[in-house]
């Protein structure tokens, strides 16, 4: 009989094989959709890492998603055909032209006061790099300030929530360089070594699916490291870990930043798949919705949270196809959420763990190990 750890890795393997096999049965329209849900699944991982493992309920995860999305979208915007057709040999985003003051030079450097910020984004790889660096840097700054001040629990949630709403307003207000409410649309395609990632080709799907597999396995391995174990100890009793001599804020900030990195990466992939970036990524609703996915799937399970996100989105897309059901479906979501919090705090992953344990209890060879199936070690899975 396999150990529980092996069983869990086997489930991971099954999940990854399934995502890789999806193109065999789906047309390009559905592949594009599923790619989006896999991106949401990656967000679920980011939430599970910060909420389930670090005990930090981040209500502003959308900030990191949005930062990643905007950074790449700026590069792709400059790469789009329309940006090259604005009467200048250098690319200029169309919305800047619409709002340009009469007589302003049609150059990215000086079409308006802040447009020079766009200059380095002419290189696509700068956009990609920023899409990873910016979310991490923001998280690093927030984390350092908040965790050094030993702010914890609900106050971290409130601060992250206020920060994402603050940034949302700034992005909307900085209309000349962000196109305000409308966001960045009409983007070009990601170009790697001459290959263009058209959102509806199978290669783009694999780009997302492989990224998800890497993030999934990477996060899983990360929480099993020594640092990951210390992080879980901090979640369970911060003061005790502090007394043991560990530098608590460093661990918290590091994992907070990793979670932001994953969210930012997800944001970039989302832009590749859906060809837009908009301030709706920074809405409160979106950030809380991510938490819902993770809660339903299992807040303390990386794969559970990921699956929760994919499941909820797939079901809601299918149900919403039927006219009139879209609004009714939201009722179901609201109800599911209340019920999950009330009766199923460990989510679907909790059910899976219980089933697994029950199955294993039947095999006598493993009876010795059943004893350690305490709540704590289950949470850690």
């Amino acid at each position: 009989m396999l150990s529980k750890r092996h069983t869990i890795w086997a489930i991971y393997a099954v999940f990854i094989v399934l995502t890789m096999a999806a193109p065999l049965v789906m047309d390009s329209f559905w592949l594009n959709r599923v790619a989006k849900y896999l991106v949401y699944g990656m967000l679920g991982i980011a939430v599970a890492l910060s909420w389930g493992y670090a005990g930090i309920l981040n209500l502003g995860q959308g900030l990191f998603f949005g930062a990643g999305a905007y950074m790449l979208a700026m590069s792709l915007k400059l790469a789009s055909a329309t940006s090259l057709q604005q009467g200048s040999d250098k690319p200029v985003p169309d919305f800047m032209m619409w709002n340009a003051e009469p007589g302003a030079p049609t150059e990215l450097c000086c079409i308006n006061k802040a447009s020079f910020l766009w200059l380095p984004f002419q290189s696509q790889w700068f956009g990609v790099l920023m899409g990873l660096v910016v979310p991490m840097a923001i998280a690093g700054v927030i984390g350092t300030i908040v965790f050094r001040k030993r702010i914890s629990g609900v106050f971290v949630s409130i601060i992250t929530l206020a920060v994402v709403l603050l940034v949302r307003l700034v992005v909307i207000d900085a209309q000349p360089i962000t196109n305000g409410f409308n966001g960045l649309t009409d983007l070009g395609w990601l170009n790697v070594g001459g290959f263009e990632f058209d959102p509806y080709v199978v290669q783009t799907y694999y780009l997302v699916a492989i990224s998800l597999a890497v993030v999934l396995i990477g996060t899983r391995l990360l929480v099993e490291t020594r640092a990951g174990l210390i992080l879980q100890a901090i979640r369970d009793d911060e003061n005790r870990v502090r007394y043991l001599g560990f530098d608590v804020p460093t661990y918290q900030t590091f994992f907070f930043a990793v979670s932001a990195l994953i969210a930012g990466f997800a944001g970039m992939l989302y832009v590749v798949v859906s060809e837009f970036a908009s301030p709706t990524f920074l809405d409160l609703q979106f950030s809380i919705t991510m938490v819902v996915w993770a809660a339903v799937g299992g807040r303390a399970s990386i794969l559970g949270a990921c699956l929760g996100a994919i499941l909820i989105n797939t079901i809601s897309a299918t149900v919403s196809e039927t006219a009139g059901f879209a609004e009714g479906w939201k009722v179901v979501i609201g109800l599911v959420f209340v019920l999950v919090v009330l009766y199923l705090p460990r989510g679907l992953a909790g059910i899976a763990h219980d089933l697994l344990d029950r199955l294993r209890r039947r095999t006598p060879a493993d009876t010795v190990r059943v004893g350690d199936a305490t709540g704590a070690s289950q949470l850690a899975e």
Partner: protein
Amino acid sequence: MLEVLFIGLSLGSVLLLVALGLAITYGAMGVINMAHGEMVMVGAYVTVLSGIWLGANIFVAIPLAFIVTALLGLLIEKLVVRKLYGRLLDTLLATWGIAILIQQAVRLEFGLSFFGIHIEGLGPGLQNVAVPEFLQGAFSIGGAEINRYRAFIILVTAILALLTWLIMYRTPIGTQVRAIIRNPKMAAACGIDVERVNALTFAFGSGLAGIAGVMVSGFKTVFPDMGTPMVVDGFLVVVMGGVGSLLGSVFSAGILGEINGLVASVTNDILARAVVFGIVIAIIILKPKGLFALKGR
């Protein structure tokens, strides 16, 4: 200048209206009620519906909205919140689910729209409330134009804040609520029926949100999603003022309202809101317990 200060005051009073109920439920019960904004929304819809079906003005709507939202709050407390005491972040998530349910109940007209039945005043569309004639227009004090309806809001807020203060500090039940804010277990040990008091507190807090909804409906468009930004604002006010401190909420609502008004008068509304968020973040980081934190062991 007087006009700007007055607008700030009226913005602050709207903040306070929404925050009062939250200050009580969060402070006393340790429940982050994300459905509080939906109570405001329900209050606004009570105004719309009573206007359409009863021909009543907002003065009739105030007690009606209080009763409807207080009962709704009582129901939520009995069915959901009661099971989550002590799990602060879980109350946030569960009440978010409730918020979605209430929004959809209004949008789908309690599910009747599936059967082709439509109720005038409900549904996904936008609704407007007519303000009684004597509250329209403006009057001038010292050369400053003062909007009558805004003045009315300030008045109502002042009355409600006073009333809440009287209940909290001058009645037996208020004493019990304050005892629970300080230490629920010790309060229970002294013979206070914590469950009953909590249920009543939650109902009262929700009722206050309902009245806030009536007031808001007079100058804002009424629609099913209107509550979400309000609950965020109200929540920030409470946290900045100090959890469990009524005075703190009054104070921080006033400050935030004035800052919002002042910044908006020099720049625009979006930036003003951003500045308010920035100040709240700074204060929470510097003083996580809020400006007027209760001192205790």
